[in-house]
């Protein structure tokens, strides 16, 4: 895992805002901050959820190991140490999350920013209702495990969904669970845990995967990176508002009055 993680350095994520939401954004982005582990999911269960290979199956490759490949002389190649998955020639595979608007720990942009700040060899995507993360397969499994086991995942308000992601903006059900048309997971009323019965693209699992108990809303409100009027309102974070307005003003002026933008 250490070969995939970005080492914390002198640069810290600079995100504006004076509220707990802004603080959480800065915290999750910062590679120097250790994400709190809240649950344990075995390596095999992570592989099952991803659905790219059967646990124990060898990784498929798209090219020979770099050592055998005989790469051309290239200063960038010398500068950047390949990740283990890249060295081995793994396929690029994905995990995709859906984060509920109802105080999920992360939101798609924060997921992407976090991925860029914390991990090497990542290709995140950012949409309103889903956030794909693509990496070499063995690297992905390590990162997926961290994303599922730590405070940035909540079993009820974050979904692992490769397809048919609809649900981020829908009300929660009677068990506090986010809608999933494919019903990949169920709420076990006996244990209070969420259990995945299908992998991320909806293929039924022979062995269900338990991902733990949902967190109480009051806890989520302290952990979330989402501004909401019934949580932390943007109106109460003038530093953030003014920063956004300044960005907009600079972009606007740069388009046709560059000399004015330079003076701001």
């Amino acid at each position: 895992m250490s070969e995939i993680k970005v080492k914390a350095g002198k640069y810290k994520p600079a995100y504006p805002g004076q509220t707990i939401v802004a603080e959480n954004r800065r915290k999750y982005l910062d590679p120097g901050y250790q994400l709190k582990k809240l649950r344990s999911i075995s390596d095999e269960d992570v592989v099952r959820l991803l659905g790219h290979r059967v646990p124990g199956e060898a990784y498929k490759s798209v090219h020979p190991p770099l050592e055998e490949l005989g790469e051309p002389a290239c200063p960038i190649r010398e500068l950047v140490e390949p990740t283990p998955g890249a060295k081995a020639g793994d396929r690029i595979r994905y995990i995709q999350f859906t984060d509920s608007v109802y105080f999920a720990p992360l939101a798609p942009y924060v997921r992407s920013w976090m991925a860029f700040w914390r991990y090497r060899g990542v290709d995140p995507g950012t949409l309103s209702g889903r956030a794909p993360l693509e990496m070499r397969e063995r690297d992905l499994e390590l990162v997926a495990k961290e994303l599922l086991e730590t405070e940035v995942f909540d079993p009820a308000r974050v979904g692992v969904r490769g397809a048919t992601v609809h649900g981020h903006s829908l009300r929660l059900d009677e068990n506090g669970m986010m809608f999933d048309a494919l019903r990949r997971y169920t709420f076990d009323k006996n244990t209070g845990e969420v259990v995945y019965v299908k992998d991320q693209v909806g293929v039924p699992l022979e062995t269900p995967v338990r991902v733990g108990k949902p967190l109480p809303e009051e806890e989520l409100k302290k952990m979330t990176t989402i501004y909401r009027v019934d949580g932390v309102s943007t109106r109460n974070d003038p530093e953030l508002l003014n920063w956004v307005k300044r960005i907009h003003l600079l972009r606007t002026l740069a388009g046709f009055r560059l000399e004015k933008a330079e003076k701001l």
Partner: protein
Amino acid sequence: MAEKKLFIDALKKKFKEEPTDKQTKFYIYDGWKQSARKREFVEWAQKISKERGVPGYNPEMHLGGIPVGQRVLMPYKISSTDVYCEGDDLHYINNAAMQQMWDDIRRTVIVGLDAPHALLEKRLGKEVTPETINQYLEVVNHALPGGAVVQEHMVEIHPALVSDSYVKVFTGNDELADQIDKKFLIDINKQFPKEQAEALKKAIGKALYQVTRVPIIVGRAADGGTISRWSAMQISMAMISSYKLMAGEAAIAEFAYAAKHAEVIQMATLTPWRRARGPNEPGGLPFGYLADIVQTSRKYPDDPVRVSLETLAAGSVIFDQLWFGIYMSGGVGFTQYATAVYTDDILDDFCYYIADYVKKKYGGFAKAPRTMDTILDVATEATLYGLEQYERFPALMETHFGGSQRASVLAAASGVGASIATGDAQAGVNGWYLSMILHKEHMGRLGFYGYDQQDQLGATNSFAYRSDEGLPMELRGANYPNYAMNVGHSGEYAGIVAAAHAACKHAWCVNPIVKVAFADPTLKFDWTEPRKMIAKGALREFMPDGERDAVIPPH
């Protein structure tokens, strides 16, 4: 007005729970069977499959056996009307009024008559009088739908197939207008409020324009590019016949140019190779032209929000549902994006709220300083108000398909607000872009991938006028490079343009000639109220132009 929360009635009809409830139920609605429209589709599909022996529509094929309808398949209220319909009724292919909306634009070409009249008089020695003009109009109304006028032994077109085709004229000269046979005249004095009529007549002056409505079936058989050709051919034939011209003398070449090409106004420009279409296709329709085509300002001259919302609805159908959704993409997904701005009174609520804010803070419409401070203020307020409604009323958040809709609705309210405050469409679109990045930072999410591109760099070109860098908003369209890939934007931009001019009480946005051409009561689509027409289409109460019954077996 916004204190009433205009969207509440729709939310109560759509969902069992109170709009403020935070929980609901899923997976209990019996899939597609909860929808009368889907049941009808299945019934038809089974009949068709039996007849043709090839299976077709079958909602059980959805998601490998998990049909749509795992959540409630809610109805949609067409904003500002009392009409509720199913989402399916708003797909362009399912809605005859939407088809008529575009057919009306594509089949229209405006051709000036002054150049050919001057040539007839000065070069060919013919006399042009109101009587000859009326005579010509009789002839061209025979010729344009497909009647022969010059050659013997010609084939002609069955009038029943082209009953939608005709020619009318208009002028800013009251004296001339009085002498035109009323059945051929678009009467500016009759169609527009007095102040607007005076402004339009002054702009148009003594010029005489003919509005040609080429048969809808021609546009459908070929494309918009053929409309001006068809029009030109039949106009020149009618002129040759009416004025007894010699077919072939050298002067006829000059006349043909004057009559067919010199004063032609297409509704849309052609598009470049990678999105190639001829003129009069939706990709080349400027926002300002659409804002002129929509006629709401005639009926509601004091309500710039209404003018904007009606334009916006028409734009969403034409640009999103038709251009992006059918021409550029295909399939069924785009309808969900486009309908958000004209259903459930959501955008209406947000726009009327910000209009009230503008009135109170700046003393009326188009009275605020045209400064960045105004834009920052108005667009921020519109965005935060809208976000707060989505969060206070979870059913409101849920009624949208997803974040792209939310983003476009909020940005539209912000753009309309900035337009109404300043009377400037450029300011309006700049407000749109502020809304987008505010929304992104607030929710940590925005729309689908495309919103990253268009809406992050949009601010930078929003005030750019120079060629290759920008254009006045009125002259941009869905084909503007930065706008060419994204659903949920172009219709809204047309609404932002309309808002600016309606706030200033202008009689038109960019072209007075286009404005008058669509003030035509013969059109079956009522351009003063596009949303009402869309609703009629959804209820299957809209009778469109164009049909083939006359040449197919009875059915």
